[in-house]
Structure formats: structure tokens, C-alpha cells
């Protein structure tokens, strides 16, 4: 791997930047691997990276049906936080946040990770009670959290409208100062580059079309680039997980929905943090390029179209202007959609399956980006050892029959 350093930067700038090497090899599939990861998004690439780094399993293929960074990893609003209510979620997302805090150095790449603070607004008494409860729960779990009065909200984010006459007045907010954003494309590229450096094959344009089984355990996959054998297969296919799991006759509690986001034209720095509001339903940050990055809601119906309905966007803009009247004349530049796999309890499934050697990492729904490194960490452990890591033991598939659901609808922030 060509490491990024000041000396390297100077050397390459003197030679006209003509000698930078590709981030990863364009690998062709081999016949057999120790482990196959289905899905080359952030979570899949992180899984491959930690399989190699933490567990010494380097004979690994990541199969991606499109291109690296073309799926949900490149389609989200890049928000990172760990202020989830329950102990299980708090531990998992906080582990992930701690990994983010050292990830630039670990992957030797600038992820533009910015801990600018995440605010979750409360607009009614129920919101206030729920928010304060969540702040206290977070603090008991060692996760930073604060409750802000409306005046403190205004101080932290001056452009927000806190007038008492607003239709949905701001009654306060939770603040996680360690929360923030990162550049999503670079996260995918950084994990791909680091995994490739440890020997992982990243195979693009390779769609899995079947899962081979023998006597209740997996033996390999059929793909558009031929049959590939492996005794361990991890499926990390986000919105398409149900489709892949159906190839092994596994039925899941997931439903796939389009989730949209949009960006404005670039403007001067004006928005210093991340603001989220469940009740008015908007979440907003400003990228370093100057665009306002705005997340919309999901379409209610099931869809695989990577395209959402316009009325969802319209609703989104109404919410944005309600909270930030200053943006009423900002023009929007682009909108897009990604397919998210929504779970009934708004918590992920990182689990073994009834098929031996087949593992699932899915159900991250509308908020998987923040969990990218932590998800890869625990899923790599699950695949390598065959048993869940303590952090993902509670996120097993059997929780739907045991009843031990982890209800995070309050903290998941997007209405499911």
C-alpha cells in the first residue's frame, strides 16, 4: 500500500501526481477462499479488513455486484453518533464511535471525520421526557450526552428558529459533542484499500445468484463471474439482504424501503453542527464543500428502485424551512435514494443463521453508516470464531422468537 505522508505528498506533487497507485487491485475471483463477504459496502469492507487485521484471515473475497462506494455507503447523510437508549445498542454504537476516533490513523487516510456535535431536538413534552431519559441512560453507559435548553440550542446552532410561536417550538435538545460526520466515499475507499493491502480480494461487478449448500452448511456461492467456494460466508447486502437470504431459504423480518437524501447548492459555512428532529422530521449538516446535506424519510411501501417519491422530499423541505427560515431561498442541487433494510425493532441483526457457516449482518435500516467500523469489527469476530462477539450477542436472529427485542425507534431518529 502506498502510504499517505507529507514526504509522499511532496514527492508526488513534484512529479505531477502521475505516479499515485490505485487504492486496490482489480481482483479476479479465485476458485476458493477461506471466507466470502457478499456486499462491498462499508460494512462488508470493514468486515473483511477486521477479518484480516484482528483474526489473521486474509484469504477473503468481497463480492460487490456494482462498484465500491456505489451503494448505501455513498448515499447516506454521513451522521455519526452513539446516543442510543438501550445498553446493548449503546455498547455497540459506542464501540463504533471509539473506532471512528482512531480510524484516520488506522487506515492511513483522511476520512474528514469531524466531531462537530449532534443535536436531537425536542418539540413537545413527550419528546422532552424521552430525550432527558436518553441522555441519562447514555451517561450511565459512559456515553457523553447533555440536555440543552432552547437558549443553549440557539447558542450552539445560531441559525435555528427557537421562537415560542413556531408551529413546533424547540423545547430543548440532546447534544452529543463527540458525534459528527465523516466523508462517506473515503470510508469505503479507505477500508477497501486497507483490506486489499492485507491480501483481501475486492471483486466488483460480481453479483451473487445462488448459495451452495451441502448437508445444512454452506459450500460456496454462484455468481455472475462463476462459482466460488468457501466454508464461511457473510452476507452484508443491506437492502438486498432478503433477496440473498432467500437463496438459502432463510426468511427475515426485513422490509426494503427507499430512503432519500438531498444536497443544496454550496454556500458559505453557516451551519456548525448536525441537527436532527424526530417530530418535525429533518436532519441536516453542512459538508466541507458547503452543501447542506439533508436527509428525508422513507417511502412507506416496499421498493428496490433506489428512487423515492417526490412528496417525501416536499415534506422534507417544509420541515427544513420550519426550523431554519434562513434557508427558504436556498436551491437544491441533487436528490437520490438508497434501499434500506428496516427491522421491526429498528435494531440490526448481526447473527449466525440456521445454515452452518452462513452469517448475516443486516437490518441497519436508516442509520447504518455510523456503525460501519463497529459492525465490521463484531461481524468479523462472528465469522472468524463462529460465535457472536459479546457486543452483538443480543442482536441475534432468534430475538424475534425469544421476544428480547431491542426497541430503538426513539433513538433511530427516522420514522420507520
Amino acid at each position, binding site marked *: 500500500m502506498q502510504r499517505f505522508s507529507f514526504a509522499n505528498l511532496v514527492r508526488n506533487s513534484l512529479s505531477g501526481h502521475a505516479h499515485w497507485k490505485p487504492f486496490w487491485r482489480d481482483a479476479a475471483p479465485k476458485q476458493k477462499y477461506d471466507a466470502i463477504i457478499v456486499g462491498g459496502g462499508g460494512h462488508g469492507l470493514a468486515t473483511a479488513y477486521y477479518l484480516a487485521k484482528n483474526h489473521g484471515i486474509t484469504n477473503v473475497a468481497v463480492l460487490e455486484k456494482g462498484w465500491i462506494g456505489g451503494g448505501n455507503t455513498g448515499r447516506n447523510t454521513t451522521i455519526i453518533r452513539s446516543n442510543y437508549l438501550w445498553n446493548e445498542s449503546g455498547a455497540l454504537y459506542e464501540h463504533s464511535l471509539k473506532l471512528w476516533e482512531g480510524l484516520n490513523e488506522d487506515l492511513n487516510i483522511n476520512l474528514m471525520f469531524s466531531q462537530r456535535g449532534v443535536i436531537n431536538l425536542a418539540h413537545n413534552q413527550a419528546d422532552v421526557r424521552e430525550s432527558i431519559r436518553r441522555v441519562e441512560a447514555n451517561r450511565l453507559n459512559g456515553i457523553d450526552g447533555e440536555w440543552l435548553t432552547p437558549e443553549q440550542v440557539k447558542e450552539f446552532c445560531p441559525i435555528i428558529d427557537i421562537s415560542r410561536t413556531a408551529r413546533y417550538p424547540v423545547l430543548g435538545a440532546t447534544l452529543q459533542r463527540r458525534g459528527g460526520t465523516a466523508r462517506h466515499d473515503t470510508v469505503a475507499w479507505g477500508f477497501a484499500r486497507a483490506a486489499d493491502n492485507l491480501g483481501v480480494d475486492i471483486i466488483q461487478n460480481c453479483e451473487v445468484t445462488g448459495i451452495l449448500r451441502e448437508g445444512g452448511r454452506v459450500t460456496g456461492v454462484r455468481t455472475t463471474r462463476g462459482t466460488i467456494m468457501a466454508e464461511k460466508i457473510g452476507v452484508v447486502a443491506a437492502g438486498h439482504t432478503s433477496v440473498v437470504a432467500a437463496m438459502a431459504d432463510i426468511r*427475515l*423480518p426485513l422490509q426494503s424501503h427507499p430512503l432519500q437524501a438531498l444536497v443544496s447548492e454550496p454556500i458559505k459555512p453557516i451551519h456548525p453542527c448536525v441537527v436532527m428532529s424526530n417530530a418535525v422530521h429533518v436532519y441536516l449538516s453542512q459538508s466541507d464543500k458547503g452543501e447542506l446535506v439533508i436527509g428525508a424519510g422513507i417511502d*412507506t411501501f416496499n421498493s428496490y428502485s433506489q428512487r423515492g417519491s417526490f412528496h417525501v422530499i416536499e415534506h422534507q423541505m417544509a420541515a427544513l424551512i420550519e426550523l431554519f427560515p434562513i434557508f427558504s431561498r436556498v436551491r437544491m442541487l441533487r436528490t437520490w435514494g438508497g434501499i434500506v433494510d428496516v427491522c421491526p425493532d429498528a435494531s440490526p441483526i448481526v447473527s449466525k443463521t440456521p445454515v452452518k457457516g452462513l452469517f448475516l449482518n443486516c437490518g441497519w435500516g436508516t442509520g447504518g453508516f455510523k456503525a460501519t467500523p463497529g459492525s465490521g469489527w463484531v461481524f468479523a469476530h462472528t465469522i472468524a470464531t463462529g460465535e457472536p462477539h459479546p457486543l452483538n450477542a443480543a442482536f441475534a436472529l432468534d430475538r424475534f422468537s425469544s421476544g428480547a427485542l431491542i426497541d430503538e425507534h426513539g433513538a433511530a431518529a427516522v420514522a420507520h
Partner: protein
Amino acid sequence: MLQIDCPWCGMREEMEFSYGGQAHVAYPKDPHAVSDEDWAQYLFMRDNPKGLFLERWVHSQGCRRWFNVERHTVTHEITAVYKPGEPPPAAKP
């Protein structure tokens, strides 16, 4: 936005409707007799096909009645609308 042909009111915009998920998920005949696994199948496990899907909608801003729709989950094309109690299109002779 979808245009949905309510069997009672005719063609209306999607915003008048609410979504009810997969159709034809039958309540267990004797809920006390089913195992935890079967209960989970009824309560949480759902088909999630990339293709034709039978789903329920309710005309919540109109006649407030439920009905079923056959829709493609990639093209969003609605290929059939039918009332509760009627068989799905594929099951018709």
C-alpha cells in the same frame, strides 16, 4: 407518487392511502397452540421480494376501507387491485 385505483373510490393519489405491508398473512387459528418460532413467523417474518408483491393498502383519507394490491417493487407498476376476501391474481383460474 403512486396512483392507486381504490376499488370503492377509483383512482387517487398515494398520499390519500396508508400502507399495510404484506397481504394474506393469516392470524393463527389457535394462537395458544403455536410455538414461539411459528409465532415469530406470523408476527415478524415477511416476504420481501424484488418483483411482484401482494400488499395491503387502506384509503385512510377517503373511504377508510382496506384492500389488496399487486405491485412490482422495482418498477412500482400496479398490476392488480382487489377487495379483501377475493383471491390474489395468480390464484385465479
